[in-house]
């Protein structure tokens, strides 16, 4: 289990997906340890080059677990979605497969969805 695996960065939100990640722990479910969770008020704060720099530094996959339509910040999710489209274009330009960046929505109790997103990204970064 402890062999070195490509690292996955998981960006979570204070309001929903970070408590969601806690809920996964509280339920004592499990996922691989090559996953690194950081929390932000909202991922809308990251410019396109934040993701590109993370890939350059060696992060293999990034999952943005947003609050989706339940986002408490007005208009933030729409802005984030548009920004991620720009990142996909930049990734294509650098020949980075776009499935290494995933924008998804995770709520405070979305335990199964949380595990599934990680499992899907594990398959992507293993290729």
């Amino acid at each position, binding site marked *: 289990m402890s062999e070195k695996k490509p690292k996955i960065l998981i960006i979570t939100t204070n309001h929903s997906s970070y408590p969601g990640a806690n809920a996964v722990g509280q339920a004592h479910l499990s996922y691989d340890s090559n996953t690194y969770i950081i929390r932000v*008020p*909202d991922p809308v*704060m990251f*410019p396109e080059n934040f993701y590109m720099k993370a890939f350059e530094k060696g992060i293999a996959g990034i999952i943005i677990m947003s609050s989706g339509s339940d986002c408490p910040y007005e208009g933030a999710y729409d802005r984030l979605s548009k920004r991620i489209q720009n990142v996909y274009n930049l990734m294509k330009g650098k020949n980075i497969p776009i499935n290494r960046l995933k924008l998804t929505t995770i709520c*405070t109790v979305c335990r199964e969805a949380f595990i599934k997103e990680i499992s899907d990204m594990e398959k992507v970064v293993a290729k």
Partner: protein
Amino acid sequence: MSKENQKEENAVNESYRQKPKVAVYVCHCGGNISDVIDVKRVAAELSKYPNVAISREYAFMCSSTGQDFVVDDIKNNGINRVVIAACSPFLHELTFRGALNRAGLNPYLYEHVNIREQSSWVHKNDKEGATLKAISLVKAGVEKILRQDPLNSIRVEALHSVAVIGAGIAGLRAALSCAENGLDVTIIEKSDSIGGNLRRSGNIYPTGEKASSIPENLSKKVLSMKNVKIYTQAEISFVGGYVGNFQLNVKKSDGNFEKVKAGAIIVATGFNHYIPHEGEYGWKKSTFVLTLPQFNELLEQSAGSEIEIEGKKIKSVAFMHCVGSRQIDGIDKPGKNGKVNDYCSRICCTAIIHSANRLKEKFPYVDVFDIYTDMRTYGMHHEKYYKDASKNDVIFFRRPLEERPVVEIGSDSIKIKTKDVLTMNEEMEIEADVLVLGTGIVPNDISDLVEYLKLPRGSDSFLQEVHPKLRPVEVSNNGIFIAGTAQGPMDVMETLQAANTAAVKAAALLSSPDIPLDPFVAVVDEDKCTGCGLCLAECSYSGALTMMEKEVNGKKKKVAVVNPALCKGCGACVAVCEPRAINVAGWTLDQFDAMVEAIAKE
């Protein structure tokens, strides 16, 4: 400014310009962390990391001894940045901010790294991987705190008034407690009268008193308070503002609008009884199939020696538990929201047994049957009701959770067919004159309010607190509290306790002339700001960000200016600022870049 606030601000000026000296503390959390993660190795690795002056591990960092380590190291060893690797920051962030404050260090010069919920608990079978991950995460925490500026709480003026939404017993109790604490209270009730569901609930446990006496007593007291205003048949059409200064637009019964201002809001919107689907256990197929509230009303109204429905003497009554509760996907029909109610409504078992006992006490000749799933008469002395029911010759049948009894409506009686676990799954046929459905509790439809206040809801659609034990009446939105059954099934005692708690929290919040808020809002580096205005176009909150001409380094220039009371700290403005002149305090892009760098490193 209070002494505490002054102390906090003084600490800012003294600590942050010094050379960083970071202390790292790795918590065992009993064995919750250390059974999986090699905490000694994490501490040893971090002791070699640049700028880390002290690295320790300890059994319980949240204990007073653990906190004392932090305080002593700050006071005696010159520590000016702290990283604690432990449980979720949502549990103990405030605990450790308090410790820093006591030591005279700015409370925000501390980073909390979660190595329990998001590491030891989820990587139990990979101790090496969990340990390596913890090391990387703590290093990232150190990188973040090295780039952290000291922050001061934002202070917003607080109105000494509370808006209570809902006038059931939770709303009335909360309103009364707030008013007794000197706050001005406005109660906003959707229906045409106050008192809520309890006005129609018959006789209640544990006191055996008439349910309606509780809202009646509360109403009298509330109405006698000069600082309480009540609007009935009133609907909220908009909520604006923020903690300390909310504005609620209320449409009154006469069609006119009233603006209600409040420093805090208590949501006490209550519950509804589950209404069975037509045909569910014979519902609507016979006038002799009643819900528990209907039966309780009948029981209280029945005088004399006999209980009757439509002139027919009732000789036998069967009670059915878990109607609309503990439903199973694929077996039970979903509700309007497309979901089944898979939760336990908690109070029905005791309420049913209480009614069965009342029935036997009032009309001893009636045969009583009780068809239950699991007998959950929880609560102080409530087991007694179950024992009393056995003594009262109530006959119990325990049905399997995943099988539904079949109800056949006959011309003269109702037949209930069920398996009985107590007799090794024997098929039973129970014949009764009346079937009482122990209907569960469902949340009221408050979709509009949820939208206006951005209230979090759980998967069961009840309002969700921040933490069931540590912050049981708070939601993630500052200044908004929840009281009573809007949060989940509760009995009368629990409802009143929750309402009192919410009122105390609101009163404590509004006890000072101003309220301290987290300082995590946008801040502008005026030197870097080019005045391009791109950030302004990204901001969704009117007045939170403006462009102003200011004198910077002796020259006049246009710069972005943040109103911290209106800024929500989302960071939408941050992403479009190429020179990184605008950031969310405590969550800067430089900090995140450094964290990712630390995580990505082998």
